């Protein structure tokens, strides 16, 4: 059984690092703290250099997530996560690490973690493997899809929530954004660029128009390959769909 472990502590808060170091002091026969880091990039450098046996790793670091640190390591140390997240949120990471410690930290929980560490190091348990790291920690990242659109005004820019947008109207190489409360805002993106970025709620229905599907209140047949869409804004704006969009409009609104 391995009974001595070189350790590194990674946490952005100094009181948190001090507390862990203090509580680990009870186990100084087993755990030797050889370094500390208060952000992700410093941690990567330090760990790759010192090659500790175990790292105590906070999940939320100022510059990245703790998992991003793991990806950059040139070997695979044992990992004990420390976190203020709910137990529920962290459960899935059991497979990745020796153990996890919830904040505020408790002595008995730390003692248990060290037992588990010795167990794994002695080869009695399956060494936690770092498979599927990416998919596991994606849940901790903010969603990528844009929910707002930035609208430039000189050197300033404002944000419009997509749910407030009724439709987009092409204007030369630019676009007008028409909002629920009747505002018409200038946006320096081309309609085609916006179309790429917008969520599935939005749909191109004509060369010059993208509408918010949630804002369509009525659909009428206009001709044999066009529809008139009535939008739910103050003026009940009507937009006639383009012939080449007939199929997708028909499918989207099940008409």
């Amino acid at each position, binding site marked *: 059984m391995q009974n001595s472990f070189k350790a590194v502590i990674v946490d952005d808060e100094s009181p948190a690092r001090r507390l862990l170091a203090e509580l680990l002091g009870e186990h100084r026969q087993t755990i030797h703290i050889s370094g500390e880091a208060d952000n992700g990039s410093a941690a990567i450098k330090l760990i790759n250099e010192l090659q500790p046996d175990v790292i105590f790793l906070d999940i939320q670091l100022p510059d990245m997530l703790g998992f991003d640190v793991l990806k950059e390591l040139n070997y695979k140390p044992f990992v004990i996560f420390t976190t203020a*997240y709910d137990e529920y949120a962290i459960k899935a990471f059991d497979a990745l690490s020796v153990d996890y410690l919830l904040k505020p930290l408790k002595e008995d929980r730390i003692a248990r973690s060290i037992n588990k560490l010795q167990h794994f190091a002695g080869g009695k348990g399956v060494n936690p493997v770092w498979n599927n790291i990416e998919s596991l920690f994606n849940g901790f990242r903010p969603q990528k899809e844009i929910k707002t659109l930035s609208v430039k005004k000189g050197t300033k*820019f404002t944000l419009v929530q997509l749910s407030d947008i009724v439709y987009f109207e092409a204007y030369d190489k630019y676009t007008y954004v028409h909002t629920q409360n009747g505002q018409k805002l200038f946006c320096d993106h081309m309609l085609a660029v916006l179309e790429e970025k917008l969520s599935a709620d939005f749909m191109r229905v004509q060369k010059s128009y993208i509408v918010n599907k949630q804002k369509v209140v009525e659909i009428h047949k206009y001709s044999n390959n066009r529809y008139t869409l009535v939008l739910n804004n103050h003026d009940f704006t009507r937009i006639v769909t383009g012939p080449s969009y007939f199929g997708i409009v028909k499918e989207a609104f099940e008409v």
Partner: protein
Amino acid sequence: MLVDPSHRINTITYTFLMSLLFSGIVSALYLNITYANLAEKRLRFERELEISKLNELKTKAELDALQAKVNPHFLYNTLNSIAELSLHQGAKARQMTIALAELFRYSLNKKNETMIALADEVEMVENYLMIEKIRFEDKLEISIEMDNAVKQVKVPKFILQPLVENAVKHGLKEPDNKGIIKITITGAASHIDLVIHDNGGPFPEDIQIGYGLKSVMDKLNLFYPGKHTIYFENEPVKQVTIAITNTVKNAEFV
């Protein structure tokens, strides 16, 4: 005679009857269309009414939802700090405990207030920042300036705090950099500018909004529809401004 007079009469009668029938069809069609228009209008009116009722309900629900709760992640981290400070730095632990209690009380909102004097919101922000300063020790530098004229102006609760929280996060993002946060509040009873600066990286054009910023935007839309803007700047300094151009809040909310 080519045309039999009786036949002629018949033709006239026929024409007359036909035109009568035709006009009947036309007017029936017309009435139908008018009726259809009316029906459509009524339908639309009903739909609008329904939407406005729904909106009212939604507004209430939204307001309830927007009542900020202390983020558990923040709470546990703070308690972890207090646990450490209590070992060797009793006075600091006590200071932090009191600040946390104040913050918790403000967010529990037992008095059921939606609006509060700006000075009180700022006091809460100061409590919040004091906690962050202890958590991150010498890594945060903070200054707050507020015009006397705006201190008693009522604003929605938690209108400032979420953006300050974002500023702290961004200010601390650069490793080895001290986070500098500057809050400047200017204006008068009728209009307010809340300006928050941090020394983190510039705002990206495709800014990702989190729950905090979204809650501020939703609140501004509810309370000051059409009378506010949030704008972001990177030049000459990085700052975000909440500009309320008319502090008379939406009449729907008392």
